């Protein structure tokens, strides 16, 4: 195939393909990725990615995709299984409605990260924009996770119905950890924040609690995984000082109607 360099990492016996994505339209790029997966490649390295949308969209395979460059919107949308690593920033819609898999962004990410995601993990090393984790939901053993190394914008976890969001606030500037309307309409799941925040930042459907022993164990495990995948040093982060946001009700809008 054009622009594909084949290699294999013999020590792990992983079939690796390298693809030069420069100047290729997303449709063609995604077709190439699919055809490489069908030919049995287990790892695909995309070089020179510059804004191509929908990488990994709808893929259900057990494949690893390494992206060098900035992928476009809806990275890993509707994805169900793959592991994606971005060695740069990512744009909007990372992990939109994803069902399982892992997305690691070694940089910043834009708005609407993990909208409606049902399972899998998203690790963003730096900051995220608005509406992160909106309407995340869990189902049986499926519990989605988003860990943000930096700060999050407004509407974090809005309408959240399940899953786990962690915000570490390790960015260098001194802005607030989260934006306004955090957890508005939240009716399931949990948001962990590395520091206490002002209640004026919260939606009226959530309350602040201290992290307990179970939370700390869970956070330690997630922090180790996050640090391992993003390369960010989390040694100074102490889960014992974390707070968590929980919904006041699983049915926040149950009393709005008369029959």
């Amino acid at each position, binding site marked *: 195939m054009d622009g594909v360099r084949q290699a294999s990492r013999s020590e792990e016996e992983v079939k690796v393909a390298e693809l030069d994505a420069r100047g290729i339209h*997303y*449709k063609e790029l*995604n077709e190439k990725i699919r055809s490489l997966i069908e030919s049995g490649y287990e790892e695909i390295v995309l070089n020179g990615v510059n804004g191509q*949308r*929908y990488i990994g*969209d*709808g*893929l*259900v395979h057990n494949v690893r995709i390494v992206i060098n460059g900035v992928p476009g*919107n*809806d990275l890993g*949308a*509707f*994805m*169900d299984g793959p592991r994606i690593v971005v060695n740069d920033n990512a744009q*909007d*819609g990372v992990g*939109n*409605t994803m*069902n399982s898999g892992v997305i690691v962004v070694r940089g910043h990410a834009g708005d*609407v990260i993990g*909208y*409606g995601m*049902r399972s899998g993990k998203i690790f963003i090393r730096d900051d995220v924009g608005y*509406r992160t984790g*909106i*309407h995340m*939901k*869990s*189902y*049986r053993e*499926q519990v989605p996770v988003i860990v943000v190394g930096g700060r999050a914008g407004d509407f974090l976890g*809005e*309408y959240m*119905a*399940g899953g786990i969001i962690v915000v570490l606030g390790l960015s260098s500037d001194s802005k607030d950890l989260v934006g306004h309307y955090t957890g508005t*309409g939240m*009716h*399931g799941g949990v948001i962990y924040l590395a520091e206490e925040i002002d209640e004026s930042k919260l939606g009226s459907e959530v309350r602040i609690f201290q992290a307990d022993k179970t939370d700390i164990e869970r956070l330690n495990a997630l922090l180790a995984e996050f640090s391992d995948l993003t390369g960010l040093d989390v040694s100074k982060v102490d889960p014992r000082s974390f707070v968590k946001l929980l919904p006041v009700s*699983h*049915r*926040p*809008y*149950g*009393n*709005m*109607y*008369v*029959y």
Partner: protein
Amino acid sequence: MPDRFLPSEFIVNVDHQRCRRCKRCILNCGFGVFDFQNMTTADSSKCVACHRCVVFCPEEAITITRNPLAFREHASWDVGLRKAIWKQAQSPGMILTGMGNDKPWLNIFDHLLIDACQVTNPSIDPLREPMELRTYLGRKPARLEIEYDSQGKPVLRGAVENNIMINVPIIFSGMSYGSISLNAQRAIAIAAERLGTLMNTGEGGLHEELYPYANHIIVQCASGRFGVHSKYLNAGVAVEIKIGQGAKPGIGGHLPGEKIGREVSGTRMIPQGTDALSPAPHHDIYSIEDLRQLIYALKEATGYKPVSVKIATVHNVAAIASGIARAGADMIYLDGFRGGTGASPAIVRDHVGIPIEIAIAVVDEQLRSEGIRNMVSIIAAGGIRSSADVVKAIALGADAVAIGTAALVAMGCRLCQKCYTGNCSWGIATQRPELTSRLDPDWGAERLVNLVNSWSLEVKEVLGALGINAIESLRGNRDRLRSLGLDPATNEVLGVRPAGM
């Protein structure tokens, strides 16, 4: 204050001379009207006039009448308005309702008359001539370019987008598993397959048992993304992005936790007993560009299956439809303000949106004037009650229509408008197993097939009278309609001349 502050809507009368005390009425009523203490008793305050008891009483011993209680007439203070105030004064909240708009707004379909041939341009006899109802849904090329190969055979240049073939220009509208029972969905799926048409999952996911019918199913992706995953998106023949619904334009949906039992929970992929909240907007769509992004995300995820975008018909529907066509949609599903629902605040159901007749006409006109009508198929829904409505909707500019309420009525629905209670005695809008089990999917499917086949015969008969032998030739053919009793401004908007002109 007594509980009976609100007078009963209906009075249930059991003729004890006829009653043989078989208790079928007690078993059949989903609303708990009947009881038995030495003889059958009825609590009229619970009756919704769904007729289940009447139909199943072997002795015809039950009659239901409107409560004759007199109210002092007042032209401004309709009795319904007074009752609404009593309800809300008793417990605070929005008044919830089901089905479609029941207010006596002008019904434009009932003011449109269809043309017929006389003497010149002779009519066609559908008994003798083939009448084509087959319809293709999806994007059509702006022009066809044909090349000739070395043998001189014509070859089509360029790719033509995926289209879906349906045998009749009538599909079933999106009604989710949750809002209706699985047996009701099964009946619709079986009917869609037999008729060679489509059903739509609504926003409730696709139950495993319906996957065998996937070639006749449009899967929906709505703001709550319930049950949306790769296998689901790839199962159907098309994906529909639900932006809005005719019965509740601009608002989200709340399926109450009581209705999220084990099966519904599994199909929606959410925990049992929690409310299923569909946000008002899709939070990844705040602009036409964002809509385009989701359309193409879905196309990428499904190998470029056609994508439909469903909107409620609101004031600026024509401009919105133009944006949707340009955003890359293959179909636009217009849901008029008479469209049905499992639950909607009455204020929204009854007062928000515009009629489907007007929406079809202005959208068709707008897309034609921009030269992009070929880019999308228009599916009209929300108030299609008969084959006459089908003909008129298509003549106004739709490619096909979708029916929801009409399909439920075929399966026994009496339009009691209590879908949101989950007590449907007909086993349709309920998840209570003792109620859903009474709806036999094969019985329901047969009735749906009969209905659509009957309408098809009628549509063919009218096409013949019009001297047209394909439904395609009727699309947007407003010259074959005349209005009666509509004002000049409405005539102009519809692009229809008054009768006599």
